[in-house]
């Protein structure tokens, strides 16, 4: 059974799971459940779809055992899986709703915005690409190489997006004051 006090590292848990330790997998599930759910909701904009993506992401992860080898942060592994499943879920939902046209690239919905919070407004106006790299970098704590792996883009592109996102925040009248302090 999963122990919320389980202090083993992700690598140790994966090694244990490869030997058939179901408790180790359960610990990983509860450790990353909220993160995957939040990510899925950011990308789908729908609670029910986010829960579907949560299940599908971990069932996909489950199929990797035994023999799974973690060569990066687990978030770098889970991110593309959750992202692709989210895109597929939104595409399916669009078709089910009978939309006349399903866009080639489904743009993620704008994140929830606190009323009257100007910083949130500026962040929301950033494109999805810039917003995601900022979240992965400053919320999830991934490094540039880890973000590049998660998004399957060159490191130079990640650096460019981070830089440009910060530049936009610095240039906006509503947020530049925070950079001057």
């Amino acid at each position, binding site marked *: 059974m999963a122990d919320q006090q389980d202090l083993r590292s992700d690598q140790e848990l994966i090694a244990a*799971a490869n*030997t*058939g*330790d*179901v408790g180790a*997998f*359960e610990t990983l*599930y509860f450790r990353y*459940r*909220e993160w995957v*759910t*939040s990510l899925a*909701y*950011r990308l789908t904009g729908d*609670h029910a779809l*986010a*829960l579907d993506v*949560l*299940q599908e992401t*971990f*069932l996909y992860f*489950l*199929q990797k*055992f*035994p023999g799974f080898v973690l060569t990066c942060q687990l978030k770098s592994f889970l991110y593309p899986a959750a992202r692709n499943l989210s895109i597929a879920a939104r595409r399916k939902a669009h078709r089910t709703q009978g939309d006349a046209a399903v866009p080639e690239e489904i743009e993620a919905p704008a*994140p*929830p915005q*606190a009323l009257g*919070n100007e*910083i*949130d407004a500026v*962040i929301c106006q950033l494109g999805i690409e810039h917003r995601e790299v*900022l*979240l992965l*970098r*400053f*919320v*999830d704590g991934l*490094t*540039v190489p880890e*973000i590049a792996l998660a998004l399957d883009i060159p*490191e130079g592109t*990640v*650096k*460019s997006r*981070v*830089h440009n996102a*910060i530049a936009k*925040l610095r240039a906006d009248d509503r*947020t530049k004051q*925070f*950079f001057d*302090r």
Partner: protein
Amino acid sequence: MNGDDETIPAAIEQRLHHIAGATGVFVPPAVDDAVLSRSQQRFAEIRRRRAKTQRVWWISAAAAVIVLGLLASSLITVTRYERADIDRSGRVDILDAFALARRIQQGDTAGFDFNNDGVVDRADVDTVAAQAVRLRKGRA
């Protein structure tokens, strides 16, 4: 430009955390149960396969030990015959018993304790002679 070195003000980082966490998505126990029950099935299967692999390994190891043991004992048998071929004629016969008797008289006894009693004496000559007779009878 190094993306890892770039920083943002604390106020903006705080709002990013708020945006990331403010999903309001409650994960019902049924969702947890769906994932965890599948994981229990999967890992039970993993454990069954590991136990089966380990059983096959132990059986193979035991079989290898048995085969090696049989091979070793057959080699020892061959060696014993070769040891008793004192005159190196290619066969063990009564002439080897005579040759051993001469060696014992000359004090050359190293490696000729054929009856394993710790002493090389007439008893070992009798052992070689008995072996020669058995071999002769076997060929007859």
